[in-house]
């Protein structure tokens, strides 16, 4: 549903545009900080390492909320995929490296989504949407 070529209505397209904003936000933040807490089974605890990717959580949250505007949550599997992606993470360096490896693999095999024209790795869009879906502690 994130492929703009399959999203004829403007609302969905607008939502996709917002999703990309969140996705790109991921790339630029979190150079200095990494979530250190072990990942538990609760959604709220899953949220922490994702949020740690962002230097300014408030800004990221604002973007995340905008990403979700107009999206039907049940239609998107980002939360489940993100849970799998993050599950074995226990430390910061591993977390960052795992995400990077995942991105590289996805780009290498062409597992990408085109969101409003942007060519993004699937996990990028997943993390972006997941962040907006997860509740705060």
């Amino acid at each position, binding site marked *: 549903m994130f492929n*703009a*070529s399959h999203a004829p209505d403007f609302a969905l397209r*607008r939502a996709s*545009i*917002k999703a*990309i*904003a969140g996705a*790109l*936000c991921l*790339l*630029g*933040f979190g150079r200095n900080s990494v979530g250190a807490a072990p990942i538990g089974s609760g959604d709220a605890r899953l949220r922490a390492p994702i949020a740690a990717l962002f*230097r*300014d959580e*408030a*800004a990221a949250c*604002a*973007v995340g909320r*905008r990403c979700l505007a107009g999206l039907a949550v049940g239609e998107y599997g980002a939360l489940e995929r993100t849970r799998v992606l993050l599950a074995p993470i226990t430390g910061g360096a591993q977390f960052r490296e795992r995400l*990077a490896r995942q*991105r*590289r693999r996805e*780009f*290498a095999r*062409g597992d*990408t989504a*085109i969101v*409003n*024209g*942007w*060519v*993004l*790795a699937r996990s990028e869009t997943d993390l972006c949407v997941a962040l907006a879906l997860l509740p705060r502690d």
Partner: protein
Amino acid sequence: MIIDFRQADRKEIDATLCIVGAGAAGITLGRALAGSGIPVCILESGGLEYDERIQELYDGKDAGFHDIYDLKNSRLRYFGGSTNHWVGHCAPATDLDFAPRPWVPYSGWPLTKAELDPYYEAAQHLLEIGAYRYALSDFPDRYAKIPPFDPNKIVTRVWRLSPPTRFGAKYRDDLARADNVRVYLHANVVDFDTDADAKRVTAARLHTLDGERARVRAKYFVLACGGIENARLLLLSNRHAPRGLGNAHDVVGRYYIDQLRVENAAVAAVDNEQPLAMLEGDFHRDGVRFSSLLCPSEQAQRERQTLNWAVEVSRLTDMHPWAVALRNVRDAWREGKWPDDFGKQVWAVISDLDGVATGMYRRLQPWPLSLLARCEVAPDPENRVVLSGERDALGQNKIERRWRLGPREKHTIRTATRIIGEELGRLGLGRVKLADWLLADDNRWPADVIAGPHHSGTTRMASDPRRGVVDATCRVHGVENLYVAGSSVFPAGGYTHPTLTVVALALRLADHLRHRLEEPITIKTPLRSPTSSAGVS
């Protein structure tokens, strides 16, 4: 010897070889045979300079895909032909361009690139572009640190840019000095006379704009008038062949191809510009200008089912809306760490959400890069030139060009930019955004898509007369003494500009004709292996 035909006394001219057209192909052919002792006559419609009255003979009608270059002005009708206004990009077609590609209908040449390689090498000298080397690795000092693209997806190569060589000015003296070559200017060929069953050309009929008429008799004829006029003259030669000479199977004029150039097919927001910056712009080496290309591997073309393509990297100008949006975000950053309320602050400033998205990419360089896409046009029998009902000043039917772009071209450009996006993402260099029009699954094209103008394909080469007009030697199927030179023989064009291939094919044809002229005309001589005679003196 160069002669103004209007001043010539004799209106019956004899030669062994008659070349119609003095552009890149005709001049190359004539020059290659200079000093051979073979009496050669070159007929050029124009003079030594541009003349509006003569240029008007190129006027025609376009139907279908828009083209900012109209039929009249996209080619030049005087000595030197369209080399009088070409830009100079040179690169050989690729191995795969010559091969049949199951996913590209009607693709494939009846010869391989390896067969043409010796002539490509010889053509380099005529075009003043140095050695026959096109790999970026040939320039280690310039391209030592290019990104390590996945070779299964992207291969790199260079354009070599000719000065550009103006064939008329550059090689005029060579032809003028040759004892065996006569060049007639202002000699418009209007059609060919043939024997009764149209299997042999007996003469080329000439008209001048002042009403003079004449004939040139020769043993062999070579049509070298360009990608559209070659087909036009065959169609006009219909006295004994009602559908046109060499057109028994209704192929002449069909399979028109060109090449597409799409500015800003995508933009790349890069987080570390330097590796890509190496690929941007031109550089000079040993008097030759170069620029770089990102191209698909054969595997990528095969797997993604695309036509051939290339992408060039350039910098967006300050005035581009993208650049303005990014500058605004950058300036905001410089004033503070980050807006307190990102959404409200930034979206209040910039209405372009894409600009916001890109601006959020913290390591972004001040200006993003633009990706210029080049794309082959798929051969299609419905893309064609035909004779229209309108007549030119010589009373000849004008040309009507009917062509369209299809889903293959759009798929190719979309895939090309997506592959670049995948590779920039994999390498951690940045992200790519495709132009909006590429996202829609329709056949709409923006107004700024530019075609060549590299008119090709209208007398395509094929072993099967039902699929092509000329055979592998460039001889017209069914006509024993008529050949075609130029881009009209290309069955597939790739993304590379045609001039280098046109010149290489002309040198190859010169070799073939030289050998054939040594033997009786009734013997079908197979094309001989390239010899040193392809070399240019």
